[in-house]
């Protein structure tokens, strides 16, 4: 059995997300998801509902009227925003674990994942693309493969990093040379097991190689948001910035220096806001 098959084999033993949470994630991928859909998705999980309402209340901090129901939250924040809050609450426990083999302390991967989700969303807005739930979801989950490799399979990234530095190749290419697979493919395989929609799976699969598969704009959005957040130093692991941005993806999205900087600026602010909301919701 090759190293690659060995890794993919082990994936089948992983259930990083409870079934109820997984159902919520799947349901919310529908871009037409209505308030009714959100409410139904949350229906079976009172704990999740209460966490989402706490966050919603932090989001409208200062208001005298509190959000007491999912309907309320949707009325105040809009369906798309509530949907994103739900996604963040569901996915957070997965990406909050420290990723030992990849040199990511606790919370760093969460920060990076949330930032890429927010960044992909801002990029879509600036590129005048329809805001896509799949970009946000894929952003949140794009590095889930690092958790599988670094924490569950306890793969030590030092030889991968050494190879990348010696040969002056991107880190994901070094992963492929040593493991026969990279964290993007591992993550995508997991999300496929979870039956997430193809655009999300593809965006995760190709986020470091957006020119291999050009069928979905969401791939370029996650790729560019990842590049921006790495540059901004938001959640860097042992490999630092050792990835190769794609000039074709940049051209397809028609990104300019100015758009990049504005989006990075907005992303950092939105991330701080989200962190504040979490801290406050925890304190309640």
């Amino acid at each position, binding site marked *: 059995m090759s190293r690659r098959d060995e890794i993919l084999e082990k994936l089948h033993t992983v259930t990083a997300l409870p079934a109820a949470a997984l159902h919520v994630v799947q349901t919310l991928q529908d871009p037409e998801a209505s308030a009714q859909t959100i409410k139904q998705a949350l229906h079976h999980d009172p704990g999740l509902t209460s966490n989402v309402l706490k966050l919603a209340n932090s989001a409208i901090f200062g208001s005298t009227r509190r959000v007491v129901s999912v309907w309320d939250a949707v009325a105040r924040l809009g369906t798309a925003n509530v949907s994103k809050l739900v996604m963040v609450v569901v996915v957070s426990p997965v990406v909050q674990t420290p990723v030992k083999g990849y040199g990511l302390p606790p919370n*760093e991967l969460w920060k990076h994942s949330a930032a890429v989700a927010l960044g992909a969303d801002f990029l879509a807005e600036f590129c005048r693309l329809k805001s896509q739930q799949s970009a946000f979801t894929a952003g949140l989950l794009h590095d889930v493969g690092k958790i599988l490799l670094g924490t569950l399979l306890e793969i030590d990234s030092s030889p991968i*990093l050494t190879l990348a530095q010696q040969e*002056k*190749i*991107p880190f994901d290419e070094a992963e492929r040379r040593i493991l026969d697979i990279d964290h993007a493919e591992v993550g995508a395989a997991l999300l496929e097991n979870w039956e997430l929609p193809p655009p999300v799976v593809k965006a995760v699969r190709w986020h470091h190689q957006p020119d291999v598969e050009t069928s979905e704009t969401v791939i370029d959005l996650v790729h560019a948001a990842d*590049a*921006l957040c*790495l*540059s*901004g*130093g*938001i*959640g*860097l*692991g*042992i490999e*630092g*910035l*050792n*990835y*190769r*941005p794609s*000039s074709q993806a*940049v051209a397809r999205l028609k*990104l300019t*220096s*100015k758009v*990049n*900087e*504005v989006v*990075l*600026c907005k992303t*950092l*602010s939105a991330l701080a806001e989200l962190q504040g909301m979490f801290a406050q919701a925890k304190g309640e």
Partner: protein
Amino acid sequence: VFAVQHTVGISEMSVSNQPEDVLVTYSLGSCVGLSLYDPERCVGGLIHCMLPLSKIDPQKAEITPQMFVDTGVTALLTAVFDLGADRSRLIAKVAGASSMLDPKGLFKIAERNYTVLRKLLWKNGIFISAEDVGGMQARTMYLHLATGKTVIRSQKVEREL
């Protein structure tokens, strides 16, 4: 005496005149970290700027001047002067400005950050006495107030700047 560590986040700064203080900023990527230190007064400051120029979002710069190199460096200088530092004695050290594997300069945030920083320090008559910039690695930067020692930690290796 135990060292008291103060963390400077992305787009934040910290200044001190307490010898037991250590200012630290983690995760410098394309961002630039600047430490300033006046050895005579034991006054120092550390800033972590993410983007070069505040003109992309002047409103944001009002609230968080530290996000941008132009407004951030000005804010840091003002803050260390307020604690009694003297311009002529300031020792300036710089770290960060890493890039991706990006020979085409698609995301040239690092280069722009570094250029603006150099220019601004030069305009203020401050020389960079040491720097650790470029490459693809993430860096952590420490400023020890007791000694003015600036230490860079990158890929598990520490060295004094």
